[in-house]
């Protein structure tokens, strides 16, 4: 591809549905939804609970800790904005509360990543957009 290496990385734009999640990340907290009738945590944010379509989603703070469910080390950029960011450490983290989240790992050597390893949140603020992304690093408390 001929795209310039300066192509900006796309930032999420919060929606009326998801705003509390992004606001909490900016404060260094992980806030996701919970459906009392289903007895399940829910991610990503929705208006009605998935599966039951119950209208009872409430926001709850979780620790944000979890385990690596899967990952890959991408030696080729997945898209032009990441040409200067390889290898990309693309991961799926499973929170202790159940749901999974797409993320990137930081502060870890690619060869040291293992499925099942404990990880903790890194609240990564992008100074240009003011958005805080949720990345992960090896758990420092375990």
């Amino acid at each position, binding site marked *: 591809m001929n795209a310039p290496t300066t192509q900006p990385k*796309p930032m*999420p734009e919060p929606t009326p549905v998801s705003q509390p999640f992004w606001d909490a990340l900016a404060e260094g907290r992980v806030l996701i939804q919970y459906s009392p009738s289903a007895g399940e945590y829910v991610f990503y944010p929705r208006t009605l609970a998935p599966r039951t379509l119950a209208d009872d989603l409430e926001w709850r703070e979780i620790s944000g800790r979890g385990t690596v469910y899967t*990952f890959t080390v*991408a030696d080729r950029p*997945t898209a032009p904005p990441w040409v200067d960011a390889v290898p*990309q450490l693309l991961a*799926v983290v499973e929170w202790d509360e159940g749901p999974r989240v797409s993320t990137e790992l930081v502060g870890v050597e690619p060869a040291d990543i293992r*499925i099942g390893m404990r990880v903790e949140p890194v609240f990564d603020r992008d100074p240009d957009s003011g958005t805080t992304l949720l990345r992960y690093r090896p758990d420092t408390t375990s």
Partner: protein
Amino acid sequence: MGLRGEAAIVGIAELPALKLKDAQPAFTIDQYARLAQQVCADAGLEPTLVNGLVTHGIGESAMFAPATLSEYLGLPLDFGERVDLGGATAAGMVWRAAAAVELGICDAVLAVVPGSLAVPRSQRRPAVDPGWYGASSNNYGSPQAEFEIPYGNVGQNGPYAQIAQRYAAEFGYDPEATAAIAVAQRTNACAHPGAIFHGKPITTQDVLDSPMIADPIHMLEVVMRVHGGAGVLIVNADLAKRARNRPVWVKGFGEHVAFKTPTYADDLVRTPIARAADRAFTMAGLERTDVDMASIYDCYTITVLMSLEDAGFCAKGTGMSWVREHDLTFRGDFPVNTAGGQLSFGQAGMAGGMHHVVDGARQVMGRAGDAQVADCHTAFVTGNGGIMSEQVALLLQGE
């Protein structure tokens, strides 16, 4: 429940795979028209018999695709359908067409997928940037725009590698086994003149030596984009008697749509084809051992391996040893992707899924030339959309 097996594929068309630089620009409605003409001619049936049409959509119009095609082709329709299942679209088209025929609402259905992005460019309007989002949507409010793309989780290589990594953690991984799939399909492509890699055999070592794209997936385990296009004509039993080719009856199907992004899969290594295949075999009243060839959607080698497992041809978690114990070439004991698959025929965009339908039908018709499987009467075909998130199984059979 299900099909009676009274609708048949009687005409097939697949354009030879072309390198991107070699394609002649044509609008998708013209690509559709040429492929429609070819499948009717192949069947020996007049186009005016067509009264059903299935499309994935056309580049020239965001909406009203069946009506636009009906008008452009001059073929009034009693069944006009659009299917939006990514790489499972083609297989999804086939069962919908067969169901429409069996319901008696139409007699002959075009299921055609243009596969060339080379379209004429307007001199007056600025070129539209195709973007790099691929199968992900960056529209405001899209879950992918908000929760996937910002982390670089875009495109296919990363997520498929994540599936392969999870598979490795649960069942183990043998790079030579997945490489063997690519090698066998290349052997098949060398017996199929239309394939982009015809005349270019490879070895297991070639695969293992090719660059790592996203660990553990090597470059030669990833499809190459080509220009092309493919389609079939599906008709009722009366027209099947008049057609030139051996009818390929659509005996069973299954479809399962489970998620869009694999992060949210209930179980990443047990894929939707399991349920789809079970339903297809039950509907058709066939066993796995009845299958003479399989054409398995193969965007990556890991896709083939996991599809063979989940469709029930070998036990879950044993696929790595199973593919090394079997010969997957057209000469082998379990022929897979006998025209090269998308890995070695080339992936003509959305037509990639139709490659597998045509591969299966061509074998059952007995028209696969040098790559013909002996005594081939039953084909198992899969389609796979997204990141193993929506899958369709078909069972096709000659009389």
